[in-house]
């Protein structure tokens, strides 16, 4: 294929495009459907994280001298603060000028993407670990029940240990099934995030951008 010759054909086709393309603008909006969905999702994440931060902060303050409640409360509080921070950071980065130079903007957006991938990984992998602290805090905070009278310490520690084992198991399973998955994009994306596939892809793209910028 002679690229110089193709340039001529390209120009000739280009000259015909004026009359042959029809783009009718019905409503002029400042954001497309994809961006609006993402903005709504981020605002929802920030709202729910902020509520959790306040409620868990209050719980922690009430039980700061009781280690058996302060520890799970602190673990959840730190997680909620991290979630809130992530959400705000992403919203700030979303207000990005798309007329910035391509390499510069794509680096910014891809970095944002790595944050989201990391947040997904952490949320999914620490979920099994944090559900026990969440249960303890929920029973005590909402119902005033002493969960240590209901659940034996062996049961509590056993579940936390299971949560720790669960993490490498989840990653291993995700890596096995990631390449075979068809169907719902959102589910495939989660599995690819867990397996590290999307992170590897993002890192490779960032390296490509760095190569262009050097």
């Amino acid at each position: 294929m002679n690229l110089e010759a193709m340039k001529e054909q390209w120009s000739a086709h280009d000259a015909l495009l004026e009359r042959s393309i029809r783009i009718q603008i019905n409503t002029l909006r400042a954001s497309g459907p994809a961006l609006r969905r993402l903005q709504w999702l981020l605002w929802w994440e920030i709202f729910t994280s902020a509520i959790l931060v306040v409620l868990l902060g209050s719980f922690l303050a009430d039980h700061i001298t009781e280690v058996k409640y302060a520890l799970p409360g602190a673990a959840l509080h730190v997680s909620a603060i991290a979630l809130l921070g992530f959400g705000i950071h992403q919203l700030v980065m979303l207000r990005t000028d798309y007329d910035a130079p391509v390499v510069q903007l794509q680096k910014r957006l891809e970095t944002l993407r790595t944050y989201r991938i990391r947040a997904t990984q952490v949320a999914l992998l620490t979920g099994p670990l944090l559900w026990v602290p969440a249960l303890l805090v929920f029973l005590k905070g909402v119902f005033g029940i002493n969960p240590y009278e209901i659940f034996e310490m062996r049961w509590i520690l056993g579940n936390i240990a299971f949560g720790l084992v669960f993490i490498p198991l989840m990653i291993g399973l995700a890596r096995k099934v990631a390449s075979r998955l068809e169907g719902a994009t959102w589910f495939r994306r989660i599995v690819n995030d867990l397996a590290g596939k999307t992170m590897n892809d993002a890192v490779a793209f960032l390296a490509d951008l760095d190569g262009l910028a050097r």
Partner: protein
Amino acid sequence: MRAAADQQRFLELLETHKRILYKVANAYCRHDEDRRDLVQEMVAQLWRSFASYDERFRFSTWMYRVAMNVAISMHRTESRRPAVALQDVDVDLTAADQMMSDDLRELHRRIARLDPMSRALILLYLDGHDHAEIAEIFGITTTNVATRMSRIRTRLQEGESR
């Protein structure tokens, strides 16, 4: 609320340069519905960014930058069509597609096999932009443009996939 004059000016410029939307959408989407989605997103982002457009510079250069940034970022996030498509923009590219020669179709197929950044570079090259203009759009040096273009040309001429 943006002034009506602003809107009118934007729509006139968009109409004059709508070919850019077609070419970028073709480079990054294989299916009709995906192309329409991408065109919608590009138009929305162009309007959003229009307030910062400096008229001392060529509109086509600015438009390419915005359009490519939208296309590459959508391509990277593997966005799918929304369940209910918003008809902000009606797009009909059928006639343009039918006028394409077989050689051009083959060229588009080879371009579709390149990575997202290389597609953008070759698109600008085929459109007649020189290395300095491409470097300005990308925010990189002309040397880097030349190096990358050389690799892309080789890949396309050999018909290799990445």
